[in-house]
């Protein structure tokens, strides 16, 4: 019988009621009295010298309050980068300035040049068209290989387009080279990981407000991490101390990474509100989102896998060019390095691994983390090369993977790329996958497809991810300029209800439902007695927000720690009420009892006593019942799984249909199975989108050709099949109190190689000599591969 409340129950989401009735409060739904509107004048060219910006005509137009240009931001900080990578030569990465409005040069289509603030949005847009920009266009630096020849520079003061050249682990390099030289077989694959746009359905919005009487600035913004924005914008851009700066991220309509970063528009609206003494609002159009939201992926890689005569993996060597775009976005340098190189061991006991990454500046939108962030890029290379090796060696791809899995007895397992996997059972998820995707019935489905004139293929894939980011002292050594703990305050109210205040942020994940589920179990009270407050720096403890599948693994752990403090204090109060020793108090199902007696007091009585302390040990114990915990994890968590996909390919057109998709994931313990299913569904849909449809394409002049939903092929309802997802294989995390691992990114990590493996399988079964096609596998690309 499934549980109907608490941990493990598929509790219905309480946040749904407001979203389903139009009562949500997204940032654009907020209107501050007296607000003005800003419209940005953006670069229409990819690269150019900014000769002049004429604002006189625009300034005189109806309703215009002021036109800002880069000159207004002289002496104001630029957007900071939150992670510093050290180059193989021991030098820090190149870290060019990222001004709020362009100064001297424009570096990508969409780079903001001027900002027109007016009384209405229409007036601001009209006047923005009257700003005259004189740009001397320069050749756009676009292709990463050519960019490294440094013939044109994105940033002259950097002296090169190479941001950093990173080797990992440098000490492994010679052993890897030797192992590959001596290997029985080496499989090599060159591939690209296509550039994507996150495309959360809610475009970004920022509203800056300033109260001159108190000298407090407020920013309402579409953010996954309001405390991070407060820290970055306050300390590095506008020099506003935290106690004078409030950042509010109310309901946020999806993030997928793209709303982690501190963006120029947030700083601009906050700055302009202080200058103009009126609130300033900006709402992105979708066209603006395409050229300003950080893009994802965009790696070009070569991977080599060496095997012995028995099919054992001996060594892996990779070389990747990672596109940084025109500026370093907040966490950009971490993505192709510590979120990518560290994952190259995958689920396998390969003894020797070396990863080289060159990060490159180009005249494109900055690239940063998108759902999965580095881990999809690692998984894609590894799982594609394993599949290719299996086919070259005539070994079943599933068997080759099984042969090289880290055995469950080997945990904790130290990889050659610096991670220590705490727990896992990869054979179990593969067994579960074989069951739910009916490997045995494939041959008959293949025959059915053949009768219909279709090619059919089965693709299999494994993935591991490192999430629950992360131990602060470790990430500090690796270049992070922030801690990565999480916080929770548990405020027990006088009548026994509970308010949780957290530094995490929910923008679709359902925290308002799941966090109370955890406390309902711990306190033995109804979920409806508990609510969650998040998204406002004014009333939540400092926390690092939501990304990297970290909220329940890190924020949930902080919640448990705070709740444990509550229980410890409540036991002392109960002991006083029952004239017993606190050591003898047991707490279960909302009742405090003296062990071995029938004496008990209820949760509600203890809570009331804490706030009405008439009969209370005031000399030993403070009144009240509220505790905060900051939890810094001991390690990453390591969700893992096995995915399978069946495709049908129409040989005449190259059109690919995903006809079946199965996922067997190990997320450790699960708080709400319904929500976990939904997270996996969404991740897989994005992964299928990447594999078959989505691509941010620049033309030779640096124009974003796929700059709207007319050209950027978002997956639609009839592109995604019914997905069979299972998370019954559970090896609980060993180092957090809930045993949870995180589930937000798995689907997007595991699915792209699954689809590509399936298409290659279909083509090879159809007799075509094709061993790789780069994503997205559009009909044209597949047809071209079929037709040589």
């Amino acid at each position, binding site marked *: 019988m499934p549980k109907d409340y608490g941990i493990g129950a598929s509790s*219905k*989401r309480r*946040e*749904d*009621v*407001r*979203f*389903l*009735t*139009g*009562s*949500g409060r*997204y940032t*654009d*739904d907020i209107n501050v009295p007296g607000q003005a509107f800003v419209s940005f004048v953006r670069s229409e060219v990819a690269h150019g010298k900014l000769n002049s910006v004429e604002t006189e005509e625009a300034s005189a137009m109806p309703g215009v309050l002021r036109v800002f240009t880069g000159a207004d931001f002289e002496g104001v900080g630029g957007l900071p980068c939150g992670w510093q990578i050290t180059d193989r030569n021991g030098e820090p990465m190149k870290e060019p300035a990222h001004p709020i409005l362009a100064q001297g040069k424009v570096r990508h289509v969409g780079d903001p040049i001027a900002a027109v603030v007016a009384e209405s949005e*229409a007036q601001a847009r009209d006047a923005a068209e009257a700003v005259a920009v004189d740009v001397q266009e320069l050749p756009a630096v676009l292709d990463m290989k050519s960019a490294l020849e440094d013939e044109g520079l994105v940033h002259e003061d950097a002296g090169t387009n190479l941001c950093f050249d990173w080797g990992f682990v440098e000490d492994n390099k010679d052993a890897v080279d030797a192992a590959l030289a001596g290997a029985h077989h080496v499989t090599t694959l060159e591939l690209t990981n296509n550039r994507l746009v996150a*495309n*959360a*359905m*809610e*475009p970004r919005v920022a509203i800056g407000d300033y109260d001159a009487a108190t000298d407090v600035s407020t920013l309402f913004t579409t953010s996954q991490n309001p405390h991070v924005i407060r820290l970055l914008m306050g300390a590095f851009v506008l020099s506003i101390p935290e106690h004078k700066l409030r950042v509010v991220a109310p*309901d*946020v*309509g*999806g993030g*997928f990474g793209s709303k982690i970063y501190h963006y120029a528009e947030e700083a601009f609206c906050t700055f302009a509100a202080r200058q103009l003494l009126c609130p300033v609002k900006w709402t992105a*159009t*979708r*066209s603006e989102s395409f050229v300003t939201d950080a893009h994802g992926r965009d790696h070009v890689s070569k991977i080599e896998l060496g095997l012995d005569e028995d099919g054992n993996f001996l060594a892996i060597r990779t070389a990747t060019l990672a596109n940084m775009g025109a500026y370093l976005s907040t966490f950009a340098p971490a993505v192709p390095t510590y979120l990518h190189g560290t994952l190259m061991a995958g689920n396998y006991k390969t003894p020797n691994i070396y990863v080289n990454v060159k990060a490159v500046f180009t005249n494109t939108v900055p690239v940063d983390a998108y759902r999965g962030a580095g881990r999809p890029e690692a998984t894609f290379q590894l799982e594609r090369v394993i599949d290719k090796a299996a086919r070259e060696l005539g070994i079943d791809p599933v068997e080759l993977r099984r042969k090289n899995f880290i055995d469950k007895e080997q945990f904790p397992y130290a990889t050659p790329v610096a991670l220590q996997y705490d727990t896992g059972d990869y054979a179990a998820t593969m067994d579960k996958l074989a069951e739910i995707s009916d490997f045995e019935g494939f041959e008959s489905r293949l025959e059915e497809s053949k009768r219909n004139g279709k090619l059919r293929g089965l693709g299999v894939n494994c993935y591991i991810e490192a999430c629950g980011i992360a131990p602060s002292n470790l990430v500090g050594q690796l270049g992070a300029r922030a801690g990565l703990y999480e916080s929770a305050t548990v405020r027990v109210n006088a009548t026994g209800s509970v308010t949780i205040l957290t530094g995490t942020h929910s*923008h*679709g*994940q*359902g925290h308002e439902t799941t966090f109370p589920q955890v406390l309902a179990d711990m306190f033995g009270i109804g979920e409806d007695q508990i609510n969650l407050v998040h998204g406002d720096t004014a009333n939540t403890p400092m926390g690092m927000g939501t990304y990297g599948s970290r909220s329940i693994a890190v924020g949930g752990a902080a919640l448990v720690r705070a709740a444990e403090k509550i229980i410890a204090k409540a036991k002392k109060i109960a002991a006083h009420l029952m004239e017993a020793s606190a050591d003898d108090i047991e707490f279960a199902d909302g009742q405090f009892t003296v062990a071995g007696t029938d004496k008990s007091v209820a949760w509600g009585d203890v809570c009331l006593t804490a706030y009405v302390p008439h009969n209370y040990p005031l000399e030993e114990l403070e009144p009240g019942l509220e505790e905060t915990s900051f939890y810094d994890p001991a390690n990453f968590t390591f969700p893992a799984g096995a995915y399978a996909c069946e495709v049908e390919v129409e040989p005449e057109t190259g059109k690919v249909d995903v006809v079946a998709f199965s996922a067997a994931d190990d997320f450790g313990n699960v708080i709400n199975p*319904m*929500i976990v*299913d*939904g997270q996996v*569904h*969404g*991740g*897989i*849909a*994005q992964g299928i989108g990447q594999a078959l449809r989505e691509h941010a394409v620049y033309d030779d002049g640096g124009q974003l050709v796929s700059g*709207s*939903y*007319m050209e950027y092929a*978002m*997956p*639609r*309802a*009839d592109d*995604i099949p*019914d*997905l069979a997802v299972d998370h019954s294989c559970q090896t609980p995390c060993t180092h957090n109190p809930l045993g949870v691992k995180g589930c937000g990114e798995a*689907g997007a990590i595991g699915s792209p190689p699954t689809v590509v493996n399936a298409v290659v399988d279909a083509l090879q079964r159809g007799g075509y000599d094709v061993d790789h096609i780069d994503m997205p596998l559009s009909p044209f690309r597949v047809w071209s591969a079929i037709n040589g």
Partner: protein
Amino acid sequence: MEFVELIVNGRTLSGEVEGRKLLSEFLREDLRCTGTHIGCDTSQCGACVVHVGGKAVKSCTMFAWEADGMEVVTIEGMADEDSLGDIQQAFQDNHALQCGFCTPGMVMSAAALLDENPDPSDAEIRDYLEGNLCRCTGYQNIVKAIRSVAEQRESAAAA
């Protein structure tokens, strides 16, 4: 400026608008019906679907003045007096929403679909939702929710 009067969810609401103002903008900015969302500028995403004169319409494809005198139903008009409407309830029961941003358009499209076709197949549901983008759910639970409403209505009608 034009004077525009609409019957929105049974209430008569009006305002002065510029000729270029879209119905979606008029609903959100002037009438403060912020349940209708704007997710794109090319009429692709479907977050702004409302019913105008009984038909599902992307409200960014009409000028506000074009709807003058018409009956408009938005997501705010879909709940019963003290409970969610059946489509809304099915969306909650089947976890058919995550961030909630596409949800108003999805619900309004689902309602129009079920009016046109009370017993749609999964393929017909997926085909009908071609004009509604969701980035969170992978659509599976949305399809499931709509199917469940069709089944409930059918069994209620049979009873």
